[in-house]
Every structure is written in structure tokens, then in C-alpha cells.
């Protein structure tokens, strides 16, 4: 019966539907109507594949096989493979639609089009996003943001180019009228000249987003993330990296032997508040945030073979040294292990927040304030595991798991002291939360981060889930995000996030309890 189906019914269906062979059993490639085949001499004399005439006579657009081989000998029935007639039927797309036009011409035309247009210099993203936010007291508000983000590189001469990353945004909040001076902002996230001094040496001068690190949830070696966010719509580290201000700096990158070396200097910029250099309405460059002190830095990437990747770094911020490294390696084709470590002379978060006077003596002792500058260590150790094909087939599902250590944060007993703050110590506790948030580093000495991503979960849509969790007090933050492409250039996004834990816990004390968001992004 099966054989009968294979040799009669299936080919008949193929003819009726006038559809060509496709990939089900993969003896023949999917049919690409109208595709002319280009050969150059001398070429091997090809033998025409049998079974093609039927398709040639019935397929609009015409398959490529000549009639003289029609009905001639079948190709060998290889073990586990079906004769071509069956392949032609079983391989058909269910809706019977075949690619329109000349698939090859499409590809070639696309290449030619790109060549004519040259490499585009900039990308413009327009986004509209609606928010429904609920605070820790249960009060809700609706908000809406329109933003335009333009970034890229423009060549000025063969050796000089301009790097730009600009954002304009307008926000409105329910129950409050729109005030242009407060609610519209133009952010120069990056604006720098790049000079190529040779094929392996460059200099960059201007506002640059200098970003380090290999971890996903927290980057101890990312020196300049402090107070850098321009908006806070997402807890996802990947989104936050897009939403930060660069530092004004001079950097140089070159190769010494096989080692890549980057060195640079970030000057302190001390300008009056209310000016264009700092926080003037609408267009303030916020340089007081990104360049509060001078800093020297050095990064060294030696050759480490074709699996390990190592970058060591040193930084001197306002006279305080720091040393760190990041190391990653792959295991097989689906697992990446990594670690990122930084040792830095600095104040603890509590010390920085409380200064010399904020909070009662008992509270200060409880949260470990008063130790002054000391060496603190921070680390992220993690893995990214792409689920193997044996489990998920062609699905692209990955899981990230990280452990974060920050000795400048609070130990278990210090977290308890923070949670027990009352009266004026409540204000001191708020300052501690604020410094951790501003610095974008874990307030708890130990926390866990996880992220799961399922690309193409339904059609081309992507789902991601992420969470931060503090084991000591059981608090955390969770976020779910769902992206649906709309055409080639549009994307619809649904996002929800919430904190959990007691109102006095590390994450539960966050003034923003939850947020539900809906956004649409169009990219030019």
C-alpha cells in the first residue's frame, strides 16, 4: 500500500498541484522556479535528474529539468530515502505556495542593491512605549514615551570617522500635563572622533561608551557604568547597556606583538549645574555624572588560543587603583563558561551612602559603615547553555545562570540591619538603596541571576525571562519580555516586571513594584 502511494498517488498529486520538489527527503533541493543556473567552462557534463519533465510541463515559471529525461531511470533508491516522486509530494509546503520570482535573482539583486547603496552609516530607531506602573504602596500611573535613537559611524576621511549615538525622548505621565522643559530630553550618549593611525591602531576622542565584561547580569569590570542610565524602562542588562551615557575620554588601541592593548584617560569635568555641560533642561550633557573624577585605564588582551578569551584590566579612578580580568571558554558547541573579577580600592556602598554622619550609630554599625576605603572584590561567575539539538531540535533556546559576589555590598546580617531601619534610619536606608541603584551593582553581597531565552518560540517571535534573586532575604526581581517582529523593520514588544519579597528586603523595597509595558519599534 505504501509502495502504491509512493509510486502513483503521490506523483499524481505533485502534478495536480504543479509543485516542484522540496526538501523532505532531501534528494533534490527545494524547487526554485525560474532560477537560471550559471555555469562556467569547463564544467563537468551533468546528467539530468529523472522525473523532471512532469514538473517542467506543469510548474509555472518552469523547473530547470529538460524533457528528454522524463520517465527515464529513477535515481537509486538509497537506504532510508524515498524515490523522487514521493519526495516531490511530501516535500510540498502545506499551503502549496512556492517561492515567487527568481530566488537566485533575489539574492543577487540584494547583493547588488547593497553594493550600490554602500554600507549605511546610521541606524534610526523610533519607539513608542506605554507603561502601567504600580508603586510599592499600590498606587498606579500610566505613562507614555516617544523616543528616537540614531546611532552609527560616518566616515569623514579614509582615516577619520565620526561615531554618534543620539537619543531624543519625550515622556508623559497620567495626571500631569506635559512640560517641555522637564519632559523632553536630547541625550548625547556618544559623540566621538575616531582616527585610524594604521590597520591595527586607532585613537578615539569624545564621548564614548567604554564597556567591559563578559557576564550577562552584572559586570564587575565595567568601570564606568556608575550613574550612566538615561532611562530605566527595563531591568534587562542588555536593554540597560543601550540606555547609558558614555564618558568623555581619549582612548587608543593598538597591537603589541599578538597582544591587543587599549589605554585611555577620562578627565574630571567640573562644571556648574544648570549648564549645557551638566543638567540643563532638554539638552544637558550630564558630564558631571559620567566624568565626576579623572581616571586612567588599561586593557590587555593576550593571545590565548582559539577557545579561551582573556582580557586583563587596570584602572586608577581618582587615585584609587583597581585590577580585574574576564575569562571565558567554550565547552563543546553549546556551553560557554565565564568569569569576571575585579578588585578595587573603594568605599563600600553603605559607606558611600552614609558618609560620615547619616544614620544612627547603631544603624551605621549594623550596615558596616565607617570602615573607610578598602579593597573590595566583586565577581560574576556563570554559564550560557544553548539547549542541544537532541532535546530541542532546531529551536534556539538558551539558559544563563550567574552567581554575583560584591563585597562592597551587604552581608546577611547587614541586610537584616537595613531591613530593620526605622525613623530617621529609614532615610539612611533609602540612601543605601539609592547608591546601589545608581552604581548598578548588587546591594547584597551575594545574589543569583538567571535568564532564559527562546527565540522563534512562535513564528519569529522571541520570549525571554530573567530574574535576580537574593538568597538571604528571598527577594528578587523578575521580568518577562515577548518580541514579535512586524515586517522586516518593525517590532512589537510586551514586557512585564515585578519585584518580590518584603517591603524592606533588597528588591522588595524598590519604590516601583511592577510595570507592564507595550512598545513598538521601527528601524530605518
Amino acid at each position, binding site marked *: 500500500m505504501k509502495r502504491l502511494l509512493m509510486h502513483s498517488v503521490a506523483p499524481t498529486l505533485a502534478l495536480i498541484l504543479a509543485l516542484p520538489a*522540496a*526538501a523532505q527527503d532531501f*534528494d533534490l*533541493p*527545494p524547487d526554485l522556479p525560474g532560477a537560471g*543556473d550559471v*555555469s562556467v567552462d569547463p*564544467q563537468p557534463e*551533468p546528467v*539530468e*535528474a529523472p522525473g523532471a519533465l512532469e514538473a517542467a510541463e506543469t510548474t509555472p515559471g518552469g523547473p530547470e529539468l529538460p524533457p528528454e529525461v522524463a520517465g527515464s531511470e529513477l535515481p*537509486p533508491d*538509497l537506504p532510508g530515502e524515498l524515490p523522487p516522486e514521493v519526495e516531490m509530494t511530501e516535500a510540498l509546503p502545506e*499551503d502549496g*505556495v512556492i*517561492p*515567487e520570482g527568481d*530566488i*537566485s535573482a*533575489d539574492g*543577487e539583486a*540584494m*547583493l547588488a542593491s*547593497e*553594493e550600490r547603496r554602500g*554600507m*549605511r552609516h546610521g*541606524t534610526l530607531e523610533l519607539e513608542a512605549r506605554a507603561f502601567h506602573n504600580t508603586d510599592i504602596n499600590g498606587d498606579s500611573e500610566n505613562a507614555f514615551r516617544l523616543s528616537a*535613537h540614531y546611532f552609527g*559611524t560616518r566616515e569623514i576621511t579614509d582615516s577619520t570617522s565620526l561615531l554618534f*549615538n543620539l537619543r531624543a525622548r519625550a515622556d508623559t505621565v497620567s495626571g500631569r500635563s506635559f512640560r517641555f522643559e522637564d519632559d523632553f530630553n536630547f541625550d548625547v550618549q556618544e559623540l566621538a572622533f*575616531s582616527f585610524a593611525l594604521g590597520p591595527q591602531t586607532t585613537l*578615539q576622542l569624545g564621548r564614548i*561608551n*567604554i*564597556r567591559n565584561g*563578559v557576564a550577562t547580569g552584572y559586570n564587575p569590570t565595567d568601570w564606568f557604568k556608575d550613574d550612566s542610565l538615561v532611562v530605566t524602562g527595563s531591568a534587562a542588562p542588555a536593554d540597560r*547597556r*543601550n540606555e547609558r551615557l558614555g564618558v568623555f575620554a581619549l582612548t587608543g588601541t593598538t*597591537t603589541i606583538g*599578538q597582544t*591587543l592593548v587599549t589605554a585611555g584617560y577620562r578627565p574630571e569635568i567640573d562644571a556648574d549645574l544648570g549648564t549645557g555641560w551638566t543638567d540643563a533642561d532638554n539638552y544637558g550633557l550630564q558630564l558631571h555624572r559620567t566624568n565626576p573624577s579623572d581616571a586612567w585605564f588599561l*586593557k590587555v588582551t593576550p593571545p590565548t588560543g*582559539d*577557545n579561551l*578569551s582573556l582580557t586583563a584590566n587596570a584602572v586608577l579612578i581618582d587615585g584609587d587603583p583597581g585590577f580585574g580580568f574576564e575569562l*571565558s*571558554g*567554550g565547552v*563543546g*558547541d*553549546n556551553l560557554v563558561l*565565564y568569569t569576571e573579577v575585579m578588585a578595587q580600592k573603594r568605599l563600600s556602598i553603605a559607606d558611600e551612602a552614609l558618609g560620615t554622619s547619616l544614620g544612627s550609630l547603631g544603624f551605621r554599625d549594623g550596615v558596616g559603615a565607617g570602615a573607610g576605603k578598602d579593597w573590595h572584590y566583586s565577581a560574576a561567575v556563570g554559564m*550560557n547553555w544553548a539547549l*542541544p539539538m537532541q532535546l530541542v531540535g*532546531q529551536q534556539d533556546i538558551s539558559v544563563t545562570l550567574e552567581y554575583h559576589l560584591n563585597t562592597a555590598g551587604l552581608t546577611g546580617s547587614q541586610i537584616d540591619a537595613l531591613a530593620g531601619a526605622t525613623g530617621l534610619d529609614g532615610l539612611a536606608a533609602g540612601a543605601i538603596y539609592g547608591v546601589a541603584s545608581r552604581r548598578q551593582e548588587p546591594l547584597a553581597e551575594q545574589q543569583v541571576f538567571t535568564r532564559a531565552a527562546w527565540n522563534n518560540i512562535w513564528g*519569529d517571535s522571541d520570549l525571554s525571562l530573567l530574574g535576580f534573586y537574593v538568597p538571604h532575604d528571598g527577594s528578587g526581581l523578575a521580568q518577562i519580555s515577548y518580541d514579535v517582529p512586524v515586517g*522586516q*523593520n518593525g517590532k512589537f514588544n510586551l514586557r512585564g516586571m515585578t519585584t518580590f519579597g518584603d517591603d524592606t528586603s533588597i528588591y522588595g523595597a524598590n519604590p516601583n513594584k511592577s510595570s507592564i509595558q507595550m512598545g513598538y519599534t521601527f*528601524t530605518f
Partner: protein
Amino acid sequence: MELDRREFANLLLGGATAVSMGSLGLPAFAANNAATILKKTDAIRNPQRSFAVDVSLINYERGKVKEKTSVTTYSRPTGSQFQTLVHINAPSADRGKILLRNGNNLWLYDPSSKASVRISPRQRLLGNASNGDVVSSNLVGDYNVSLSGSETVAGGDKKNYSCHKLRLTQKASSAPYSAVDFWVDQKSNQPIKGKYYTSSGKLIKVAWYRKLKNAMGATRPTEIIIADGFDPNKVTVMTMGNYRAKDIPSSWFKKEWLPNFKG
């Protein structure tokens, strides 16, 4: 055709000899010969020097175009393998992103955030084409190869070719597939077809090569049709054009260089 005629003849003879001698119980000889065939095919698939090539990828689902991607690939030979940078030119949402491959070192760089994220070869960026498909690679560097016979198979142009059938098994952990059946035209060493498998023997994808053109001193296929082994309604067509020689320094293939990259 630029392929050296003497090499061509030697290869034909060698291929035929390998098949017959393999059946006489001389597998080592056959393996050596298989490696020679694969090496010649690799030299056709990719120029064996530093080069750049523009690649378009069109993803079809149920016969309809789902996505178009355009990239420029920069490759530099190192040992028996390539270091590769893939610069995405289109679509606009991904413009400027760079995929870096240096052995098992894979990074995805985002110009918007200046972030480089380390990814595994398993993770996919461009439709049915895996990272391993898009980056230049010599199969002989990643796989052990044996000659498993001769077969006539249909190529990407639907014409039948008499082929060496090579069996490739994963040698390097960076190799994207556990095993590959690879058909090479006996007369020209042109790649004709490949079937790619997981370690459990599941068929992941099938690729057909076609559209031979002269580029950088050899006749090369400039189009690859990739069918999804799990869902035959998903097809990706890779078209290569504008092959050009380009000196590329090794420093480009470190992730810390990526913010400085200029194509």
C-alpha cells in the same frame, strides 16, 4: 576553469583509486585520499587566503520570503582554519552588528550598546543558516573524513552528478555538526550536497551548492540552498558575490577590537 588540470586529473584518479582500494581493505589510504578530496573542495568553497565576500541570506517559509539578511564576511586563514568576522549590513534592525569567530570563540557585537556577548556555535543568528554556515570554514580542519563510496546525486541545479560520498565526523569542538555526509563531484571536486546530523543521528539540514562562477582564481559555487531537516517548509538561500582579496590583521579577531572595526 582555474582549477589546475593536472591536479584535477590526479584527483580524479586518486578518487577512483580510493574507492576501489577502500573496498580492498585499505581504509588508511582511502582516508588520506578522502582528506585530499575534502581539502580540494575546501579550496573551492573558500579562497585559501584573506578575503572578503558579500553574502545575502533569504529565508523562506512555506514558499514565502520571511526575512532577508545581507552580510559581509571577512576571513583570514590561520592554521587549517579561518578566523572570520561577519558584518551585518541589513536588515536595519541588525545593521552594524558583528559576529566574530576565532575557533570556538564566538562573539556577537552590538554597536548600539558596545556590548560583545559570547555565544556558542549552537546559537543561531540568521535563520536556518547557523553561525557555522555563515562563517568561512575549512571542513578538513573541523572534521575527520572518510570516503564512503560513490553516488550519483542531484545538485543544487537539479542535475545529477557522479560524486564521492564523504563521511565527516566531528574533530574540533567548534565544528557545528556531529557528522556530515558530503558529496563532491568526482570530476571537478566541486561541492554538490551536504547532509548535517546531530550526535544522535538526526538530520539537521541539507545543503545544495550551485551557480558556479569564477572568483578569486577558482570556479566556486556562489549559491547554497539550505533546507531545514526538521521542517522542510523552511529554506534559506545563501548567495555569495563580490569575492575580493583583502589583507586583514589578526588583531581584528579579538573582541576588544570590535568597537574599532571598519570594514
